[in-house]
Structures are given as structure tokens and as C-alpha cells.
């Protein structure tokens, strides 16, 4: 579904990605792990069009999207939950959710997804009229994912959903990620919390300083000594 080949991205004079290649098949959860500054977020940003690559190709369902603008890419069936949630604090929870469906015009489908999002995240239902800026970190993450559901994407890009959240909340979020995937959405997940990421994903890539160092089924990587030492805190 998503194919990235030799992606090179620079911020001005600083090169963030040195030729990254990865692929995501339909129906999978693929995770990209690595430490801070490795370039994980940059990869997602390049895919969703927020950042223009210096070279390399990005293909979504056979179509080259490397030079497209974000709002065009989203219309193709992709959604991106950016780092830091990216919710609009100047609007209510309800308005945030509705924004997710901006590109859609099937009122029935939107209403169904709206219901689905509120069922997955009951706490949002209570807070529909509240300003989104007053939500807690966990609630904001739920809102961000709920909003993404309303986009009804075929591919969902998640950037560090666990960031700054309490362990219990993180478990809930990852459970929901599994459910969303089971319902048919392919997911590319970027995570610093390698433990949770590898539990939930089918396949994984390890990104280090702008280059893919390892790849393979998530279970294998979780069992590998290298990964355990470097990312899972096991001596």
C-alpha cells in the first residue's frame, strides 16, 4: 500500500534522513522505532506531505505522492496524527471531530464514524462542547485518534501516541489502535515506546540517525538481543 524508497530529507543544511526505504502492506500495523532525533517523525511528515523530500520516492497505492501537498494527500485516503496531537485548542471537541471529516461529503458515513469514535472514546462524548484546549493529554490523544477515524482513512499515520501519557492510558490507546486496525485501517506507527509498539505491530523497522538499521516481524525484533539492549531496557 505504501512504498518508500531511498528517501532523503533535509532541514536546510541538516540531513535528517539518509535514504530510508520501507513498505507497509494493506491491513498491517507497521511500526518505526528508534530513539529521539532518529528521524521517525520526519519520515511520517514526508509521507503526509508536510515536508518535501530532497530525493527518493513515496508511493501510496501505486501513486507517487512525494511532491503533493498535504491536503491533496489526505484526500487520497490517508490521515496523519502528528506529534503532539495537533488538536485545535481554539475549537470545541465536537468541532475538532467534525474537522476530521472535512474532505468527506457522505453524511451517513460521517454520522456512523462519529458514533464509532464516541463509542471507542466515551470520555469525549461527555466533553463534546468543551474547548479542546482544556482536555488532558490522554483525552487529547483520544480526540486526535477519534478525529482520524472520522477521516475514514485507509492508511493512518500515528506519531508517538504514547508521548506524555500515563501507562494505563497508553494501554488503552494501544488497545484501540488494535481495534481500528482490525476494522480495516492500515497503520504506520512511529513510537519511542518500543515495548508497546512491538507488541501491537505486525512488522517493525528500527531507525537510527536517519537510516534503517533493522527490519522484520515485530516478534522477532522484540526477541533480538540488540533491540532488547538498545530499546527495551533489558541488560
Amino acid at each position, binding site marked *: 500500500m505504501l512504498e518508500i524508497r531511498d528517501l532523503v530529507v533535509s532541514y536546510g543544511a541538516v540531513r535528517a534522513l539518509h535514504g530510508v526505504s520501507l513498505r507497509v502492506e494493506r491491513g498491517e500495523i507497521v511500526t518505526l522505532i528508534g530513539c529521539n532525533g532518529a528521524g521517525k517523525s520526519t519520515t511520517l511528515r514526508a509521507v503526509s506531505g*508536510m515536508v518535501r523530500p530532497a530525493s527518493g520516492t513515496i508511493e501510496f497505492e501505486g501513486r507517487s505522492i512525494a511532491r503533493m501537498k498535504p491536503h491533496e494527500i*489526505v484526500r487520497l485516503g490517508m490521515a496523519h496524527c502528528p506529534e503532539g496531537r495537533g488538536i*485545535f485548542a481554539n*475549537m470545541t471537541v465536537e*468541532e475538532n471531530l467534525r474537522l476530521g471529516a472535512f474532505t468527506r461529503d457522505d453524511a451517513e458515513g460521517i454520522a456512523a464514524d462519529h458514533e464509532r469514535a464516541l463509542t471507542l472514546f466515551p470520555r469525549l462524548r461527555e466533553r463534546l462542547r468543551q474547548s479542546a484546549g482544556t482536555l488532558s493529554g490522554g483525552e487529547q490523544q483520544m480526540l486526535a485518534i477519534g*478525529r482520524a477515524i472520522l*477521516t475514514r482513512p485507509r492508511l493512518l499515520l500515528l506519531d508517538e501516541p504514547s508521548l506524555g501519557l500515563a501507562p494505563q492510558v497508553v494501554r488503552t490507546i494501544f488497545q484501540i489502535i488494535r481495534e481500528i486496525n482490525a476494522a480495516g485501517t492500515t497503520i504506520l506507527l512511529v513510537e519511542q515506546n518500543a515495548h508497546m509498539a512491538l507488541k501491537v505491530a505486525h512488522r517493525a523497522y528500527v531507525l537510527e540517525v536517519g537510516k534503517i538499521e533493522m527490519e522484520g516481524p515485530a516478534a522477532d525484533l522484540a526477541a533480538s538481543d540488540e533491540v532488547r539492549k538498545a530499546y527495551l531496557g533489558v541488560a
Partner: protein
Amino acid sequence: MDQFLQTLMGALAIGSLYALIALGYTMVYGILKFINFAHSDVVVLGAWGSLVFARWAERTAGWSQTPWYLGGVVLIAAMVLCGTVGFLVERLAYKPLRRAPRINVLITAIGVSLFLQNTGQLEAVFGTRPASIPRLVGDRTIAQIGLVKIEMLDVVGLFTALSFMLGLDWLVFRTKIGRAMRAVSFNPQTAGLMGVPVDRVISFTFVLGSMLAATGGFLWALKYSQVNQPADTGWTLLGLKAFVAAVVGGIGNVRGAMLGGLAIGLLEQFGSAYLSSSLSDVYVFSLLIVVLLFRPSGILGSTAVEKV
């Protein structure tokens, strides 16, 4: 008591004018985070455009008395003119500078302002002599309270201004495009991720602001017997006061701009009536300085901490 009512009427009239113009400043600031100095020149364009069009219509149609609908037609023509100019300015002068430091955009805005002013002053365009718009609204007094006359003109003006403001409020807070505008003003990048066509929304905002400016200019031309040349300092002062209104109300906040316009109108009129009229400009600027020093976010703004 009569003077109070008279002053109040005047304050409402000029306040709604300031509000219309302030809306343009606040919307552009909200979405692009810079002060569009050229906005007041769009107001001038609205005033002169209305004037020229009304005169032309009168001449070609040969009416002995202007029909009631001409006002509406002239207003729409002015809005189209200003909307187009606003669109072009945004695309040609401001869009290339989206990522530039703020000082550069400010300077460009000054450049655009000077360009519009001086092009407007060319003989081929509007010239340098004052002119006045033909009578588009009947000269009737609608009511009288004590010694205070309520003119048809004031009522029409206030009604027009209020309906536009309410319309804008509805658009921004109750429609999809309004949500898109607010999303872009909060974070253009994330808005793009929602599928919002950011560039088009920005252009749309500009066009809206320019159309409101056109309305402001049109109402001004109606109300005041003389429309001065485009580079006259009076226009820049009008723009500045409207900008102060936007800041006082909370820059970037649409309802704040309306509130601010009213506040400035009240301050100016009551200050002139009860204190000294020659210092009316000073009151307004002093208010600006006070607000910026003690509550820079304005009445309805929220203090946003600059993230490092």
C-alpha cells in the same frame, strides 16, 4: 441628555464602521499572523470605487433621481472590486513571503500600501481632488428624540454594518468553511492534514476581509460629503484607528474586533464631545498604548505563551 444621545448615535455609527474595517485586520492577522498595513487602502478603494461607479451609473442611465436599488448594486460592485484586489495582493505580494521573517512582511505591506495609494492618486485613476458620491439614500429623518434627529442614512448604515457582522459571525462559527478558517488560523500545518486547502482558505479570508473593507469604504462615502484623495492622511488614520479597535478587542478574534470597533467609536465620540475634539486621535492612540502595555491580548483575546 440630548448631547449624550447624539454622541451615542455618532459613536454607534462610526463604531460600526471601525468594526467592519477592524474585522479585516483581525482576520488577516489571525490567519497569517501579520498586520496588513495595506488594508486601509482597500477601504479607500471601496470608497472611491463606489463613488466612481455610482457616478458612472447615474450618467449612463440618465436618472433624475437615483433608484433605491442603486445603493445595493454599487456596494456589490465595490465588494467585487476590492475582493479582486485583495486576492491579487495576497497571491502576488504576501504568498511568496509565507516563511519570511515578520519584518519583511511588514515592509512588503507598507510597499503594497504605498503602491495602492499612489496608483489611486494618478489622474487616470482617482486623481488628487476630493469628490463626493451621489445621493444613494433618501434624505429623510426617520425619527426624532428630543433634539436628536435619526437620519435614514444612519439607519441604513448601521443596518448594513450589523448585518454584515452577523453574517460573518455566522460564517466563522457555524459553517464548515468557518471551521476551516479557524483551523488554519490556529495551525496551518495541522489544518492541511485535515484536508483543508490552506492556500485557498487564506485567499478566501483575504477576499472576505477586503469585501468588508469595501463595505466600510462605501458607508464612509455615503456618510461624509467629501471623499478625499487616496493618499490623504485621513485614510491612514482611519485604518490605524480600526486597527487599534482590532487590537483592543483581541487581535485575531472576530467578535473582539466588533467589540473593539464599538469601544473605539465610543471613546472617540465621547472624548471629542466632552473633552477636547482636536485630540481625538490622541485618545485612540493612547488607548492602544495602554492596552498593549497592560493587556496585549485585548478584551477577548487569550494570553498565549510563546512556545520555545
